[in-house]
């Protein structure tokens, strides 16, 4: 019966409309979370900047710097930290991290480099477990609102194999939040730390004419080199600074990951809401046509019935006439 199809469509539209309400709400929540996550990134900047300055200053005072800074001489074993989210419904956010991680794993496999994998996020745990890729440790329940404590526990997990000489390099694959409009998955070296001395040397050369670089920067570097006091000495200070700098790096990666996650989710949910609207429009049209068809059929039936009746009564009248005439 035609009315049955209409009822099915009506039910379908209603269900799409309620889904749309949910996706719309999720979109709004994600939007507010982006703002919060961005504020947290901004609030964590001073600490990171201060940490970078202290590492630089200490590195200038300790020319040896051990294996904590620069590039590892040879890489035979690495630790890989993949930062994804606990939840889905966020477009390609998790998948792009997995893809980059897989690429890295493959490259390491070709080079004969041993990899110890660490993950953040339930999705990452499930993904790698399903593919039979052993995960040394996975951290859950921190991807939405990472606290510094969370960052500390993650940093500790990747630090200990490095400190123990079990791995030569620690890499992070995570989504960087460059701005509200641009996020990208990036692979970065976490350990050894970037050698800030090399960076500064490059800056001093390139930044000659630019006003952003303090004019006296060359002088003050020389001044600081001789005069800076260290308590305790630069070497042991650097040894203690390293882990803190790693914590700060991990924290920033987690915060940026969270911001990128909410951005991806907002975008995915906005698309879903839009799609729901389109589906409602499409199904409403089909439903209206179906209803129209039923009505047309009914009218045809009534008209046909009435005509059949009239035709019937005319023959009856004719009969009467005949009777009357008889």
């Amino acid at each position, binding site marked *: 019966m035609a009315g049955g199809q209409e009822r099915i469509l009506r039910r379908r539209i209603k269900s799409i409309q309620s889904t749309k309400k949910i996706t719309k709400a999720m979109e709004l929540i994600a939007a507010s979370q982006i703002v919060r996550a961005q504020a947290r990134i901004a*609030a964590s900047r001073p600490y990171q900047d201060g940490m970078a300055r202290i590492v630089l200053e200490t590195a200038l005072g300790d020319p040896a710097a051990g294996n904590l800074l620069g590039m590892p001489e040879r890489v035979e074993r690495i630790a890989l930290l993949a930062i994804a989210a606990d939840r889905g419904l966020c477009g390609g956010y998790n998948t792009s991290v997995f893809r980059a991680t897989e690429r890295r794993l493959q490259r390491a496999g070709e080079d004969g480099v041993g990899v110890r994998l660490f993950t953040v996020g339930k999705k990452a745990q499930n993904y790698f477990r399903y593919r039979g890729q052993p995960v040394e440790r996975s951290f859950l329940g921190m991807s939405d609102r990472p606290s510094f404590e969370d960052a500390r526990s993650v940093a500790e997990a990747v630090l200990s194999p490095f400190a123990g000489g079990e791995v030569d390099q620690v890499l992070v694959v995570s989504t960087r939040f460059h701005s509200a409009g641009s996020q990208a998955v990036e692979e970065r070296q976490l350990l050894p730390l970037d050698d800030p001395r090399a960076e500064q040397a490059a800056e001093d050369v390139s930044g000659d004419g630019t006003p952003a670089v*303090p004019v006296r920067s060359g002088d003050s570097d020389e001044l600081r080199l001789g005069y800076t006091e260290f308590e305790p000495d630069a070497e042991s200070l650097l040894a203690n600074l390293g882990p803190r700098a790693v914590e700060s790096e991990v924290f920033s990666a987690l915060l940026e990951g969270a911001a990128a996650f909410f951005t991806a989710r907002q975008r995915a949910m906005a698309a879903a809401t839009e799609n729901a609207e389109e589906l409602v429009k499409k199904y409403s049209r089909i439903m209206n046509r179906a209803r129209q068809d039923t009505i047309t059929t009914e009218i045809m039936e009534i008209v046909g019935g009435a005509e059949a009746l009239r035709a019937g009564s005319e023959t009856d009248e004719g009969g009467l006439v005949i009777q009357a005439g008889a």
Partner: protein
Amino acid sequence: MADDVLLAVELVTPERVLFTGTAAQVILRTTDGEITFLPGHTPLVGEVAPCVVRVVADDGAEVRVAVHGGFVQVGPADVASSGDTVAPSTVAPATQVTLLAGVAELADDIDTERAKTALDAAAARVAELGVAGRVPGPGDEPTEDEGLVEAQAALRRAEVRLEAAGVAAGTGTGV
């Protein structure tokens, strides 16, 4: 214009900037011992031991902060400060003290009741583990040591917290 009477002080934790302002002196403890920074101090990088950091303004007012370990950098303001944070029209302090701490609390934010409870709990744990630690156990020795170290750190944290809040910490340790 550089001013040699004041220090620019910045106290930063990973989650936020806890304190920023000027001061006449900053007193804290590094792993090598107590140290006071006055304007014009030579550049220094130091590791801060868990302690109460006192930021003294030029009128003698004091901001006390419980710092549970961190790093301090003292240097000329134009190098150490994050750039144009100080408006050019005001007299900028010539010396900048930046303190980075994983965990730090302003004295006003400390819940003394909670800190006291934590102190008692930590003291009890240290006493318990301190005794247990002396019992020779071949397999589980390191884990017990770790527990003891952790408990001692917790005790120290609670003490620093109470000290910053201006409550005598001695009462808890005696029990």
